[in-house]
């Protein structure tokens, strides 16, 4: 999917999530729970269900039942939208950037990918990440480890220049040891010359930047 298309989709999802996530007093949504608890989504889902059960048991009028039913429908929509937005954000975070042969400059067309990652990182101060540099199998095996390291360092420098504290980013390199495509073609080589991005820590709830 093209970056701009994905950005547009994410904007839509984020907007949907924001509308649907208006606080419902009787049914706290996951976003409102402390972000430090582990397995928070499962817990909050269970709590929400229990709350709904209690409410259903105490409801003794048709009007109350109808109101409750409507509230649950709203909450379900809000949860789905948030999960989709989160999933899309995770996919976008994993978006790789690519390099010219034997080069480690950030390409202009990849800047938007890094800019979005920078905004996400700045919006979520507990996020940390690892950037892994890779090379195609041309050039020397050993030099490619150094080249992969350069490529990871270049992306890190770009993010740091955008304001991300450098202590939150570690870099490493696999050289040509982990190709995505083992064919000896220009297309395969271009695919293999890449940086991969992996979150090493992230909050239970993500604050999504406006794309």
């Amino acid at each position, binding site marked *: 999917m093209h970056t701009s298309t994905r950005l547009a989709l994410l904007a839509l999802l984020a907007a949907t999530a924001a509308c649907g996530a208006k606080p419902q007093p009787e049914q706290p949504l996951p976003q409102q729970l402390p972000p430090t608890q582990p397995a928070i989504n499962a817990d909050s889902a269970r709590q929400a269900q229990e709350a709904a059960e209690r409410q259903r048991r105490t409801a003794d009028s048709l009007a109350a039942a109808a109101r409750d039913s409507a509230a649950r429908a709203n909450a379900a929509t809000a949860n789905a939208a948030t999960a989709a937005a989160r999933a899309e954000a995770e996919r976008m975070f994993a978006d790789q950037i690519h390099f010219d042969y034997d080069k480690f400059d950030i390409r202009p067309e990849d800047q938007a990918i890094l800019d979005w990652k920078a905004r996400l990182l700045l919006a979520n101060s507990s996020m940390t990440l690892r950037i892994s540099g890779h090379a195609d199998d041309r050039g*020397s*095996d*050993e*030099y490619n*480890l150094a080249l992969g390291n350069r490529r990871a360092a270049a992306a890190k420098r770009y993010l740091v220049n955008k304001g991300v504290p450098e202590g939150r980013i570690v870099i*490493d390199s696999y050289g040509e*040891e982990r190709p995505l495509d083992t064919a000896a073609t220009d297309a395969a080589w271009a695919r293999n010359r890449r940086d991969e991005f992996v979150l090493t820590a992230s909050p239970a709830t993500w604050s999504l930047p406006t794309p």
Partner: protein
Amino acid sequence: MRRALSILTLIASLAHWPSGPLAAQDSVPPEAVRVGITYTPGVRPGVVMLPGNGLDSVRAIVARDLDYSDRFEVVPTTPGQAGPRGPRTVNYQLWRSLGADYAVDLIPDPSGIVARVHDLGGATVRQEGRFPLPAPSVPEFRLTVHRISDEIVRWITGQPGSAASRLLTVEGGRILLVDSDGAGRYAVTSAAERALSPAWAPDGKRFAYTLLGEGRGPVMIQDLLTGQRTAAPGASADLNITPTFSPDGSTLVWARSGEDGTDLYAADLARNCCVQRLTVGRYSDNLSPTFAPDGRRLAFVSTRPGLPQVYAMAPDGTGQELLVPFDFGATGPSHAPDWSPDGTNVVFHRELRGVPQLFVYDVAARRVRQLTSAGRNEDPTWAPDGRHIAFVSDRSGRRQIWILDLESGRLRQLLSPGAARLPAWSRRLAP
């Protein structure tokens, strides 16, 4: 035309044989020679391995070693060809008529084996020696036989062969140990790990390598016999690559990759301390160090001119300068230098229209000469005799280790079932 010229050059260079020392730089094939074409049978002295009773496996190993030394034409024989003979009677006339100049006799002896070289032209025994020989089941058996071969080469040519040596190479993520004739290969690191860049310690008993973990890893130093290993001092954090030992074994030099790029470091192995940074690249990477045999200079790869080229410096990091000349904007990236055991040459690979080829740089004459042109050829390593080079080539379809004799241009494949890379050739291995 070029081919004819190169053969003439080769014959001219061989005409002096074997009067002078067999220094590799004397007769490196001239520029743009296609390897494998200049091999000209018949111009080297003939050697025959005399048939005999017993010791067949020893005879076979020695005959192959003499062939692989590329210094002789090995005259083939059939069992019983020379007829019955006494212990000291050799049919000089017969073997001379078959093209042999020397005859090698291997005779069982209570203490092991007697090797004897006959000079057929002079009708005399040129030299003989007595060698202990372990049982064929003992692991050291083959290496012991290879040492006999190297002595026989020395008796005839004045220069020992290099059969009693081994190579470390990488197959998959595993480091393999293999004899110089391709026999006796076994893995020295685990299949569950990813190891790279093996480098021999000068004592031939240990080796260093990169243990690539999750995108980073230490340089490990491992004992070949016991398998015990430790992380090299100063080489456990970040990504540590391309280790090499100083010729006296006291120092390890390697490249460490971090936020500021890749730079060379040295550590004192004797005291297990004292890490010293040798290069400060900032905007360039520095890696793949290799010592001159006198230990006074170090060649390495640096990207300071914009793409990787071969530089040199003193082992303390001073006096950094370009070693191998290149044309800015025209010459391709250069990688993987290895300084020859006699100090006269540095072999490396350089990309030619995007394809890596072997080149050799004559340090005294400051000349670069191309060695290969067929297929991709990379990561060369010198044999202890200073005239053979092992390297990786895909000329057979996949990356395999090949061995090139610089003097004759003869090429052979080191036996290996899988795709292999990053070979490192030991020194001659002492008992």
